[in-house]
């Protein structure tokens, strides 16, 4: 049996050290400790690599991210969700559909990219980054090279938008709510959305998470829709490739969203006092700090350079168009 303590503890120690270094540095450099954790991780990971003894522990960063998201549920006011819920749902569905159609149109029409890669880029851009790329790949029978190509493109934009969004948000003087919803609607993977949101402000981070989790919940539907589309294209020869209905939706549904909702409900019953809510928020901050240290360590600049020019241009043009329209709509609505 694998000794869990030996396999993950050294790597978790690395995350803790980087996280603490980021916190210390944030007292000197006026930048979010979360962004600094990612930057330190990125520098360390690309200069020295991640040693074998640390790789299992560093790989736990997704657990800390999702655990932090669950705990963040306690900070979200239910009445705010109920008030904004229908509008956010409409915005999420409209943005996801617009992004998919824009990326698909650009990939097939303007840039002549193979349709599977176009679809993977569309799923990754519109829903939840690399997770959506992988989920959709199974539905459209994409090969490993296509998955790696699309995933590298998405990761490149994760790295760039992570730094660019908070800077643009401050430049445009956006409110916490508008920035949070904007980042949650248009950035790609959950980790960078969370980091950018909380780097802007606590309230912006909560809005960003709420919107991003709503987007993530659509991953199963998108994978099924793509499977049905590709079956129609193949003249019904691949009917066995359709993911199986409700069971598949449940399988692909990110379960930590349930934890987020559970904590939100518990906190909103009023059973927890102010000190307890503050402690949950602090715990979430610590978990995010360790998660983002790992996120930085995972970013490989040499792999990002392997992305092709055309996929990058497709996603760039789509991101600029969709995020500009979204920003205009959001500043008008809120």
């Amino acid at each position, binding site marked *: *049996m694998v000794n869990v303590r030996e396999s993950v503890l050294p790597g978790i120690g690395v995350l803790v050290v980087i996280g603490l270094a980021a916190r210390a540095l944030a007292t000197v450099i006026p930048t979010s400790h979360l962004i600094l954790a990612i930057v330190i991780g990125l520098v360390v990971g690309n200069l020295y690599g991640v040693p074998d003894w640390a790789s299992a522990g560093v790989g736990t960063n997704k*657990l800390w991210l999702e655990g932090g998201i669950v705990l963040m549920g306690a900070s979200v006011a239910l009445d705010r969700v109920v008030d904004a819920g229908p509008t956010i749902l409409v915005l999420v569905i409209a943005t996801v559909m617009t992004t998919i159609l824009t990326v698909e149109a650009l990939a097939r029409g303007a840039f002549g990219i193979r349709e599977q890669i176009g679809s993977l880029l569309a799923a990754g851009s519109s829903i939840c980054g690399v997770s959506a790329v992988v989920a959709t790949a199974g539905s459209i029978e994409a090969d490993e090279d296509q998955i790696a190509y699309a995933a590298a493109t998405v990761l490149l934009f994760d790295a760039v938008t992570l730094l660019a969004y908070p800077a643009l948000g401050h430049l445009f003087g956006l409110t916490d709510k508008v920035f949070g919803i904007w980042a949650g609607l248009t950035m790609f993977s959950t980790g960078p959305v969370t980091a950018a949101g909380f780097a802007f402000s606590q309230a912006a981070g909560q809005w960003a998470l709420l919107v991003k989790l709503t987007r993530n919940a659509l991953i199963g539907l998108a994978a099924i829709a793509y499977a049905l589309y590709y079956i129609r294209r193949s003249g019904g020869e691949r009917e066995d490739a359709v993911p199986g209905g409700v069971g598949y939706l449940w399988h692909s549904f990110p*379960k930590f969203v349930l*934890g987020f909702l559970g904590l939100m409900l*518990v906190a909103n019953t009023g059973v927890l006092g102010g*000190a*307890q809510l503050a*402690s949950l928020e*602090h715990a979430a901050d610590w978990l995010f700090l360790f998660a983002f240290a790992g996120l930085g360590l995972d970013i490989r600049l040499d792999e990002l350079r392997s992305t092709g020019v055309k996929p990058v241009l497709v996603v760039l043009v789509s991101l600029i168009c969709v995020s500009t329209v979204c920003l205009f709509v959001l500043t008008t609505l809120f």
Partner: protein
Amino acid sequence: MSNEQQSGGTVGGESSATRTLVSYWTELPHDWQAVVLGALVLVIVATGVQIPW
């Protein structure tokens, strides 16, 4: 009984209960692990433990 396996099911310093727990944990998908982690922190905080920042 080997030196590693003591009475009470201890192997390499870990009790069988710990091993069972670790086994359940490692087999749990990571998104469910996150839910368990959140619930655990909630219980700890609810008992009065304060987490500083």
